[in-house]
């Protein structure tokens, strides 16, 4: 079984558009949307949810006012500044560590589990899909990503499928780390802007750190051909394959507005053709 990740560092470079196109081209891969904060893949693939599970990813401290002796020890010892001066817990800052429960001399604080999101298993036209939704403002997205990947592996084993395609969140922080660790290969989607180049280097650094085979794709490459050339040279120097250069074309936004993958909406467009070429290169590299 191979796990293939689409990531970017910088947001909005086209991860989900490309992941959805790969889903169509792969015909029957297992799909995983690991952008649990702001999942978008479902809007292009229209999954039918078969199973929903609650995600109890974290706990919350609750202070019993009747028992509280207002000594302020909890406030002083909390390292997440989650207890306010009037001795109430700020649920957005509380990380559910439990330190307050052990330092409280009056045993007035307990930890309660909270539902901080939902995990889904679904079916799409192009294969089964594992995805999730983290309730806005909740923490522990890394743990939820790990659950989505476990579900994707379970689906792959059950269906004897040997490929999982993962759509990553932007950035290089904990949910991205949870999305890429142990994956076989990763495609970094970048754009030929200074920020795109800067963020590409950090995303490639992350893949190297976790020993994931890197590929690069330059999206909207014709917005700045000089910068595209810089990316190509940088990748060559570092022995990384640039597997695709996708032109800027408003047809991509149009397909998104129609909530269709680019392969369905404009299969003959220059964008669709380039993505198809890229997919063939990736498959041969992955030896699938």
């Amino acid at each position, binding site marked *: 079984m191979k796990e293939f990740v689409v990531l*970017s560092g*910088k*947001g*909005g*470079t086209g991860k*989900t558009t490309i992941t959805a196109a790969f889903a169509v081209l792969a015909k029957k891969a297992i799909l995983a949307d690991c952008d649990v*904060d*702001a999942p*978008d893949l479902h*809007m292009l693939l229209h999954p039918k949810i078969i199973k929903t599970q609650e995600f109890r990813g974290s*706990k919350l401290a609750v202070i019993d006012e009747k028992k509280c002796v207002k000594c302020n020890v909890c406030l002083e*010892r909390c390292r*997440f500044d989650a207890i306010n001066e009037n001795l109430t817990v700020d649920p*957005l*800052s509380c*990380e*559910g*560590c*439990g*330190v307050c429960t*052990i330092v409280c001399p009056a045993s007035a604080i307990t*930890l309660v589990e909270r539902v901080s999101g939902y995990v889904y298993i679904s079916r799409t036209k192009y294969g089964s899909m594992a995805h999730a939704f*983290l309730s*806005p*403002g*909740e*923490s522990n*997205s*890394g743990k939820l990503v790990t659950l989505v990947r476990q579900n994707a592996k379970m689906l792959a084993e059950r269906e004897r499928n040997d490929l999982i395609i993962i759509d990553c*969140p*932007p*950035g*290089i*922080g*904990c*949910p*991205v*780390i*949870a999305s890429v660790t142990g994956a076989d290969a990763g495609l970094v989607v970048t*754009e*030929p*802007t*200074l*920020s*795109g180049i*800067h*963020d590409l280097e*950090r995303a490639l*650094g*992350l893949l190297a*750190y*976790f020993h994931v085979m890197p590929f690069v794709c330059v999206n909207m490459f014709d*917005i*700045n051909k000089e*910068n595209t050339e810089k990316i190509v040279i940088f990748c060559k120097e570092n022995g990384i394959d640039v597997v695709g250069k996708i032109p800027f074309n*408003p047809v991509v*936004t149009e397909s*998104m*507005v129609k*909530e269709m993958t680019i392969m369905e909406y404009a299969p003959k467009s220059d964008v669709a053709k380039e993505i198809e070429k890229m997919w063939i290169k990736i498959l041969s590299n992955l030896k699938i």
Partner: protein
Amino acid sequence: MIVSVASGKGGTGKTTIAVNLALSLRNVQILDCDVEEPNVHLLLNPKISKEKTVYTSTPSIQEGLCNLCGKCADFCNYNALFMGSEKVIIFPELCHGCGGCVLVCPQNAIKEEEHVIGKVKFGFARGLELVYGELVIGKPFAVPVIKEVKRHINKDKTVILDSSPGASCPVIETINGSDFCILVTEPTPFGLHDLKIAVQVLKKMAVAFGIVVNRANMGDKKVYEYCEEQDIPILLEVPFERKIAELYSKGIPFCLEMPEWKEKFQMLFNKIKELTGK
């Protein structure tokens, strides 16, 4: 006044809006709180005057003192400590640094060790004071680096905070304490979907907010319908123009080459002042 710039969806133009707004006002401090992928400095080319290293604490166990009682592993809500048959195994990447294991250990066998997780850099460019954080690649500790960046807020100035995309911990940490939040979106289904998530976050946090629609002439009208329904103010629209995109690709804030925009950003700021009463 502290104004944060956030988005839900990535790549909608947070940094562009934050930097152009900062360059259009006087007496401004800009803080890049997207410590995973900081980009503000690329548009400003600051002279760096100072750097500070950021650390986090993770436990280490003195094996001679540990009697394998297991209380630390029982206590840890993040599964960062695991009871092996011969010793306690630590997973530092799961540790949140709460310090609870040190408190529960009856043998005093646990000490905290500091690890480098990032850097905060200080600089000046074009009359702006800039502070930005940089997370070490491979470390899942964005929040403590953001906290360190925010420790340097200068309240005598107009403070602009550039957030990372998404709707979880790093975004909350950035917005927390702001007087106002600008949500940057684009008029596409992805833009709208993720905007709705960001709006829920701001409502939970009880921070006032308004919308900037970027690439306003692409996509559809649903973002506008949503804002009208929800009574959310639209503060500014920026169209998709090849010139703006090309300037951005070269790292040039567009208000420098298209000075008529400075006035629009000043008007945007005046609207924020009206909305917050500050």
